[in-house]
């Protein structure tokens, strides 16, 4: 036991006293994710809602439509009475966002819409799809036209746009449960990847692991000490990234995500979340440590771990598609179970049995990995292969 504690203390000292490692592994991921997603959110919302105005030239503006367009402030509409080609040239070189030509007797023709001889009217529009402003002006304009068309030929409506019975909480959790598990797995994995190869393959490469192996401390204690301490550090890194992600979600989704609040989860949900994350990290660190022990250098270890990362991403994706699990036995599959249980927690529909099976399975597999790592520490072929 003393050996385990000594190893854990050493790993913590190695990590927490090294300011560079602390910043790059724990602080930066969370902050970066938060900043990047927030920036992305504000850029996207700037595109959608922005205050920019688009110059639109309209020929033969019908009287019936002109009040409708005046309510759309982004469209600066001017009457066009010149040559079509001039306006087209202006749209092409970006001075004008959009050029529209209505048929001359638009209103009169619409008034006769029930006449059997009525022919669909043609409105001509010129825009530049390579120019963002022009595209947006085009969409806005077409939107107004569609609304008008609907209003004059109105046969039925969905009253008030329908009544959504979902609470804000369930909408939010539906979105979260689709996205979060995969992202969470990836973040946890990258946290583990940042510390485990360095601590196992790195120590082997530098010859410092061998120094520990000549002391009477048990190999199994070294393995447990390493996996426990590395898991704690990886978990911190994962939690940091995860917080960055969750906190930036409202900024990223802007208006589209109004119902979002972290308060919809109970304290129990958060504890379950933490439990799943810890057991998953134990497992991932175990796998990465064993793979790293096989490698001769940190570089080699990283190249071995790369493909594992892809597997984790695929498993995370699978769980998003799979939806509710058919059999509780599926919760015994490591990594996949973590993704599913996170989905369940986010969807506010986690079953205690599934949670217990997940924890049990992850911890048992992590235990097996500790055993395997111990065997590897004992093997001179693996520890001293030059």
């Amino acid at each position, binding site marked *: 036991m*003393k*050996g385990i*504690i*000594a190893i854990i*203390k*050493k790993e913590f*000292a*190695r990590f927490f*006293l*090294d300011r560079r490692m602390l910043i790059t592994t724990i602080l930066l991921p969370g902050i970066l994710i938060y900043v990047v997603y927030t920036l992305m959110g504000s850029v996207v919302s700037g595109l959608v809602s922005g205050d920019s105005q688009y110059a639109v030239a309209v020929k033969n503006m019908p009287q019936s439509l002109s009040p409708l367009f005046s309510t759309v402030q982004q469209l600066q509409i001017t009457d066009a009475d010149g040559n079509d080609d001039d306006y087209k040239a202006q749209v092409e070189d970006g001075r004008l966002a959009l050029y529209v030509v209505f048929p001359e007797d638009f209103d009169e023709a619409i008034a006769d819409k029930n006449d059997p001889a009525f022919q669909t009217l043609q409105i001509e529009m010129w825009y530049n799809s390579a120019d963002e402003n022009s595209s947006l002006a085009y969409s806005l304009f077409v939107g107004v036209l569609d609304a008008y068309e609907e209003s004059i030929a109105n046969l039925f409506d969905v009253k008030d746009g329908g009544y959504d019975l979902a609470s804000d909480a369930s909408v939010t959790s539906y979105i979260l449960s689709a996205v979060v598990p995969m992202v969470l797995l990836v973040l946890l994995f990258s946290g583990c990847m940042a510390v485990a190869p360095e601590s196992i393959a790195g*120590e082997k490469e*530098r*010859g*410092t692991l*061998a*120094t*520990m*192996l*000549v*002391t*009477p*401390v*048990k190999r199994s204690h070294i393995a447990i000490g390493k996996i426990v301490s590395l898991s704690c550090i990886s978990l911190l890194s994962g939690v940091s990234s995860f917080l960055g992600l969750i906190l930036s979600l409202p900024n990223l989704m802007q208006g589209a995500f109004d119902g979002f609040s972290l308060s919809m989860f109970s304290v129990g949900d958060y504890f379950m979340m933490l439990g799943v994350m810890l057991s998953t990290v134990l497992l991932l660190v175990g796998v990465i440590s064993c793979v790293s022990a096989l490698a001769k250098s940190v570089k080699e270890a990283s190249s071995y771990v790369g493909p594992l990362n892809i597997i984790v991403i695929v498993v995370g994706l699978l769980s998003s598609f799979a939806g509710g699990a058919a059999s509780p036995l599926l919760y015994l599959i490591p990594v996949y179970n973590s993704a599913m249980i996170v989905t369940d927690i986010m969807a506010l529909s986690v079953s205690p049995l599934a949670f217990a099976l997940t924890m049990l399975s992850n911890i048992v597999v992590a235990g097996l990995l500790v055993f395997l790592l111990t065997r590897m520490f004992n093997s*001179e072929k693996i*520890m*001293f292969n030059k």
Partner: protein
Amino acid sequence: MDIVLSVQNLKKQFRLSYKQQKLQNTDKKVITAVDNLSFTANRGEIFGLLGPNGAGKTTTLRMLATLITPDSGDAFVEGYSIVKEPDKVRSRIGFLTGELKLEDFFTPNYLFNFFSELYGIEEGVRNSRKRELFSRFGIDRFAEVKLANLSTGMKQKVSLVISVVNDPDFIIFDEPTNGLDVLTAKTVTDFLLELKAQGKTIILSTHIFSLVEKICDRAGIIIDGRLAALDTVSALTAQKNLEDVFFDIYAARQGGAQ
């Protein structure tokens, strides 16, 4: 006489990869690094293992330190088998070799404490030993400096101190003066003699003949994994100096082999 180390028919073979076979220009898939080696070391003596590079010295010492296991044969340290009771052997020995490194990130003070903890040494005992050893080697001034920032000589002194952190009665030194300047080398050899004076048993591997002549009580000459000579240093050097004795044995071996 009190036998501390008894090596019995120790044998170790290494498999050569195809690449290694090509490099060494040989068809042999297996090389024998240590071949039926037997010798003993008595309490309170410095036993020298002398041999050219690749003779099997380091492999022998690594087996004694339980880092690798012999293919056959066994060795007993204070009666404990290196094969069956490696844990007991580990807690009774000190091992200094170039391939065991200390983490550059830590300070001598931290490392001493860490390894003391791994050996389960009490804090009081640890602190007094640390004070004594650090001042003996002048490490005290650098106790809180990261290893990465220390000179080669100072690093070797720290390694030396850490290797005897558990105050072992049986110490294995693999080329302890390699790469050191004469002053630092002297501190190391003085320390070996001091340990001997305390009644400790030391196994020393080296290819420096003068070192063996100066400090060893007995010496074994290893060539190609086999013991070519074993006697007290005074008996070995009765007629010629050790270097000439070695050349004679080596020439005889080569002659015999051809």
